[in-house]
């Protein structure tokens, strides 16, 4: 048989290869020092992430392994988000490394780095097989990380729940992928778009198989993104998993799910969301899920007394807002999604970093334990307030502009064609639920500042943890005051997905 290797260029995947090697270095370093390395292992891991970022900035764009590996503006932007999420997650895990997992530092850090490598491969893939491998490399290390406190029932329960849900969602996604492969005869997403477009007439009266395939794909990706009704795993896993892992899940893993969604549904299946397909397009299906996410996430978050569960429901709601932008397939839709994820990185990782520091000191994750924090630890209380306000979308913080861009993109899409007018309703739901969201975010601030303190704790300023909080704080305020540069950077992303002519 005539078989040709595709054009292979390892330079474009240099950051991934380096980070993969560095993950092994971190594990070896911890073993080499007979597990007495102290916090040095953590700094080695952070150093690796910084070097990877530097390599990423000089990596050329282009294809690296046939169609399996692309480096373009979209993948570059999301890789920065993944690296940032890993950096802040590792930075806030020094506390648990000191006290709870001092004999397994290397494995913990190595697994988080490997998961980051998977996310980066996922962001660069443009082909179903490499996309699937990237997705699995992202989630399998996180199963282990979620169950990392081996003697803690909550953590093990989180691990097994995440494993079952993650594997099941992969199976659903794969079953959908197998039908896509059968329908288009290719696993290359760009080729798939062409093949599906040429057989357009048969899809117009949408058949059973394409419909089934789209439903399975949306269900599988819905599990990954924790969109209701596929969200039940998220609060339990976030509550039980170690706090830095929960933070990494809520930002890194969610961004990875978004990338997978954009790759499959927009790169491959954009045809199924074009005007002539209405109302049988995937847009309406995803729109219903996004609406459910905003309503249920925000309503359920109000009732929570545990701050990790509250942040879990808040992240479900945020996924709903992000999906609004994803549904706007125009020149600003995907860049608004990317900007949203970028600001969400700072706000959410910062908030989780404070939760991690608080949990290390007090062992509590109850919101009511935070009472009086403003008096004992003003820096952390003020930072937490800023993060909460940014998540709620209060100007001039970054979260406001993120929500503004997402809504603006959807309104532009809705105005472009009367078929898409239901997007106005979705934006309306988003605006109303934002008000709900303000209630529970403000509740945390109220507890810290105005509730008489029952058991005042003073949180120490420790180097990596406080630095992570500071990074989040600077990011939230800086990109709120001048979102322009990041938006310019993100504005190349829709072109990378072929939504507008480059």
């Amino acid at each position, binding site marked *: 048989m005539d078989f040709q290797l595709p054009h292979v260029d390892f330079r474009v995947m240099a950051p991934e290869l380096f980070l993969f090697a560095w993950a092994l270095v971190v594990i070896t370093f911890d073993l080499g020092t007979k597990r007495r390395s102290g916090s040095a292992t953590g700094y080695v891991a952070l150093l690796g992430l910084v070097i990877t970022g530097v390599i990423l900035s000089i990596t050329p764009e282009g294809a690296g392994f046939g169609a399996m590996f692309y480096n373009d503006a979209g993948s570059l932007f999301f890789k920065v988000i993944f690296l940032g999420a890993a950096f802040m997650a590792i930075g806030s895990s020094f506390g648990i490394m000191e006290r709870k997992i001092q004999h397994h530092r290397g494995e913990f850090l190595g697994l988080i780095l490997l998961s980051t490598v998977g996310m980066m491969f996922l962001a660069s893939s443009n082909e179903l097989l490499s996309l*699937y491998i990237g997705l699995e490399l992202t989630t399998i290390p996180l199963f282990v990380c979620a169950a990392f406190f081996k003697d803690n029932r909550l953590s*093990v329960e989180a*691990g097994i729940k995440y*494993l079952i849900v993650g594997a*099941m969602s992969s199976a659903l996604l794969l079953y959908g992928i197998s039908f896509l492969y059968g329908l288009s*005869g290719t696993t290359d997403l760009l080729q798939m778009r062409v093949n599906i477009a040429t057989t357009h007439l048969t899809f117009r009266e949408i058949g059973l198989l394409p419909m089934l395939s789209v439903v399975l794909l949306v269900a599988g990706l819905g599990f990954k993104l924790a969109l209701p009704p596929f969200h039940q795993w998220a609060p339990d896993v976030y509550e039980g998993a170690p706090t830095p892992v929960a933070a990494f899940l809520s930002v890194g893993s969610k961004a990875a799910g978004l990338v997978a969604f954009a790759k499959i549904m927009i790169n491959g299946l954009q045809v199924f969301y074009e005007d002539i397909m209405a109302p049988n397009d995937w847009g309406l299906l995803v729109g219903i899920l996004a609406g459910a996410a905003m309503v249920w996430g925000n309503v359920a978050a109000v009732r929570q007394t545990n701050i990790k569960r509250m942040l879990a429901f808040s992240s479900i709601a945020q996924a709903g807002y992000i999906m609004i932008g994803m549904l706007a397939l125009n020149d600003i839709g995907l860049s608004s999604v990317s900007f949203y994820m970028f600001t969400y990185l700072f706000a959410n990782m910062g908030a989780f970093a404070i939760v991690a520091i608080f949990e290390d000191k007090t062992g509590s994750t109850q919101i009511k334990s935070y009472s009086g924090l403003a008096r004992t630890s003003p820096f952390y209380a003020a930072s937490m307030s800023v993060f909460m306000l940014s998540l709620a979308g209060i100007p001039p913080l970054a979260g406001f502009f993120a929500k503004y861009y997402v809504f603006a993109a959807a309104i532009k899409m809705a105005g472009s064609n009367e078929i898409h007018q239901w997007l106005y309703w979705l934006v309306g739901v988003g605006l109303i639920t934002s008000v709900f969201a303000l209630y529970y975010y403000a509740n945390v601030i109220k507890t810290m500042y105005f509730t008489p303190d029952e058991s005042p704790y003073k949180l120490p300023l420790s180097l990596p943890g406080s630095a992570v909080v500071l990074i989040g704080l600077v990011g939230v305020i800086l990109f709120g005051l001048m979102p322009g540069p990041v938006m310019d950077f993100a504005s190349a992303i829709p072109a990378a997905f072929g939504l507008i002519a480059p």
Partner: protein
Amino acid sequence: MHHYLYLAAILFAIGTFGVITRRNVIGILMSLELMFNAVNINLVAFNKFVATEPLAGQLFAIFIVVVAAAEATVGLAIVLLVYRNWRGIETENFSVMKW
């Protein structure tokens, strides 16, 4: 070809049913394997009858087998932790956190 797709659909349905109804974590993991194998049958059948030239479907199936094995390994390791913590692997145990 339809026979293969029906077989895969039946397998997938059995797997899904198993994941939802089994009370034993190992049973759930086995049902998950059924779901992955249904996907494999689908991919190989499509490769044989629809897209014959590149062997993408068969390669995909091999990759799924490998990844499913990795997933099962991690899964069994976590099941071991479950057993150590609860002295049992029934799903009724997992009610420390409420849905």
